[in-house]
């Protein structure tokens, strides 16, 4: 391509190409009006644009990292997501992260303050902290044999509430120190508990509240309340009644079969005398089985 030198400067010359392009190139001592070939063209970059893109890229990468840290690590671990309220007599409220870390612990009454005084909840999960607090309550005399514990789990996330309650139900019996204790776990704003844990001698049993409630009513004749302190006694009483009833039934059955045996024996006292004996035996069996 041939270029016509249009203008010269110390560092560059303006050239008009025969394709219509007008460009800047190195000035190898060119004169205006001269025709040249193979010039060394200026390298035009748009540094601002590149720089802005780089800067934007950097900002975007930093924002992505911050988002990743915030949503991936900070928010699940350090932002309050729900609460667990434990009421024995001491009333205590735990603020819990999404991953179950206890973020804050405060007493809602004087006994609550006494209970948490000196207790370090840092890096502990909600179920671990709750079990340890129950153990402390038991040691300090707040939780006695036959006592009850009410746990209320609350959050905007129903699934989280359900999972947390499930977690608590699996570990709470460890904190009762062998005492006969009933633990009621309520989910969110539900009026009635969802689970009941009956714990004694270091072993616990999880009941659905409705099931447990029916059991209580059938044994005690009235619907046990969540705050009732004699739930375990009710069950024992019901068990005794059931036992007596079955014993009585067994005795009656025994008498009946004894009579039946004696009757069958009398048929064959004089030896087997044919079909009349068979018919009599069948009649007795029919009568016995009713």
């Amino acid at each position, binding site marked *: 391509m041939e270029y*016509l030198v249009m203008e010269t400067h*110390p560092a560059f010359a303006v050239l*008009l190409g*025969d394709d*219509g392009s*007008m460009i800047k190139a190195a000035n*190898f001592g060119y004169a205006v*009006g001269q025709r040249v070939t193979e010039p060394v063209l200026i390298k*035009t970059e748009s540094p601002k644009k590149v720089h802005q893109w780089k800067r934007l890229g950097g900002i975007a990468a930093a924002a992505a990292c911050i988002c990743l840290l915030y949503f991936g690590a900070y928010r699940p671990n350090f932002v309050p997501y729900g609460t667990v309220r434990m009421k024995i007599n001491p009333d205590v409220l735990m603020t819990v992260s999404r991953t179950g870390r206890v973020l804050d612990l405060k007493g809602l009454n004087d006994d609550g303050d006494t209970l948490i005084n000196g207790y370090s909840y840092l890096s502990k999960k909600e179920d671990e902290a709750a079990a340890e607090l129950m153990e402390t309550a038991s040691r300090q005399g707040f939780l006695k044999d036959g006592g009850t514990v009410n746990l209320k789990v609350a959050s905007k996330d129903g699934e989280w509430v359900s999972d947390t309650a499930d977690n608590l139900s699996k570990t709470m019996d460890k904190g009762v120190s062998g005492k006969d204790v009933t633990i009621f776990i309520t989910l969110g704003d539900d009026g009635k508990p969802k689970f009941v844990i009956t714990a004694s001698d270091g072993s616990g049993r999880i009941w659905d509240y409705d099931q447990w409630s029916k059991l209580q009513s059938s044994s005690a004749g009235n619907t046990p309340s969540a705050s009732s302190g004699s739930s375990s006694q009710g069950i024992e009483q019901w068990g005794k009644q059931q036992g007596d009833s079955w014993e009585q039934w067994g005795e009656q059955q025994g008498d009946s079969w004894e009579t039946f045996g004696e009757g069958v024996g009398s048929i064959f006292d004089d030896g087997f005398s044919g079909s009349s004996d068979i018919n009599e035996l069948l009649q007795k069996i029919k009568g016995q089985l009713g």
Partner: protein
Amino acid sequence: MSEESAIVSQVYEAKSDPDKADEFIRQYMGFIKSETAKFTGRIPQEGRDDELSIAMLAFYETILAYDRSRGAFLSLAALAIRNRLIDFSRSEKRHAGNVSYDEPINDDGSTLGELIADESDEVERSADRLSAQSEIAEFSKRLGDFGLTLSDVADNCPRQERTMSACLSVLDCARKNPALLAELERTGRLPIAALSTLAKVERKTLERHRRYLVAILLAYTNGFEIIRKHLSQTKGGVR
């Protein structure tokens, strides 16, 4: 004001004003020569050494590309000069086997160029160049009436082939409609709306390359025969 910030403010002025750029480059000729000498191993001579021309171009490129966030200007310029000279020396190696016209070939100092008969008419060539100079001076003056310089036009020239062919189709359209060229001359304004409609080129493209289009259309008005002839002399030239 510190020396560095004084340089930076000069650089920012030189970015948009070619005269300021020339002045700044003259002021730092010592630096440019020194950087060139570091590369070539000898003191460069103005007007004789291509390496010095390349170094000056690299210095000018640094002025255009400089941004405060890129650090000290002179360090950046030194690096740019060195890189440009490396590129240039690599490209020159391709011509290593060629003999220069200006290379002395005899003991008496006569050059190859002097021995080879020049078949072209030097007088005619000189006259042509003078005519071209005169026409380019007139063209430059007419551009000045539009508030433009040739340097502005070069800066505004499309870089992409597609944009370039769009601009050339606008030129084709204007040549077929001399009234549009006359309107440009009369009003001193580019008839963007009419050109956009007739050439079927987006108005945005025309507005973005307005300065280049004014120059190229102006070349096709009366009185710029040499420029027009240059533009249409080759197969790849302007249609």
